């Protein structure tokens, strides 16, 4: 069974603080995606990383794919209340897995208080 473990599961911080969310697996993935989901909505894609060691930046968000393509991290600088939501990592094209589906972590529920 391929699993993506996300940590922490819950995070409550004050506006302006920095934070990092981790996504780890024993499986190698061809690609890894980060989504943000708000209550009552479907996940919205933030970024896709495909190369081991790759770093992508999206404004105050920095995404990194591990060298071995088994883990990833999301770092948010100077968090704002608008960053509140459920952050999901999802792996695609894992070794031995179905070529189509994504394997999702359980998510990190982030709350940023003003």
């Amino acid at each position, binding site marked *: 069974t391929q699993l*993506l473990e*996300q940590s922490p599961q819950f995070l409550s911080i004050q506006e302006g603080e920095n934070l990092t969310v981790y996504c780890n697996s024993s499986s190698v*993935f*061809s*690609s890894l*995606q980060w*989504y943000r989901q708000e209550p*009552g*909505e*479907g*996940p*919205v*894609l933030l970024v*896709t990383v*495909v190369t081991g060691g790759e770093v992508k930046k999206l404004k105050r968000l920095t995404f990194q794919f591990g060298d071995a393509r088994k883990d990833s991290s999301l770092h948010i600088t100077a968090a704002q209340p608008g960053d509140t939501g459920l952050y*999901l990592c*999802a792996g*695609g*094209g894992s070794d031995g897995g*179905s*070529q*189509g*589906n*994504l*394997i*999702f*972590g*359980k*998510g990190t529920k982030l709350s940023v208080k003003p």
Partner: protein
Amino acid sequence: GAGVSQSPRYKVAKRGQDVALRCDPISGHVSLFWYQQALGQGPEFLTYFQNEAQLDKSGLPSDRFFAERPEGSVSTLKIQRTQQEDSAVYLCASSLFVSRLAGYNEQFFGPGTRLTVL
């Protein structure tokens, strides 16, 4: 352009009833996926279509679950004889294509259908 749409957004069913959930993918997207998301959890894969062909249904939890995409566009997920454990949000996602070589699989999600079985 229009995103993925799902209907109904909310469905309440009595235990034992049959339900049908509809997904309209992004126009031109070849691949379509169904996921089940329990409260407080990440989405879990149910089934995957490439055009009208159902290439993977390994995630369907029982033979009460059935999905189809007869013309390679709109898809319907049907649940027969619903049980309380079927209560969840059912998400549909579409993707332009799926390439095993590229391992690249960017999926766009609909808002989901929240199913409550009483």
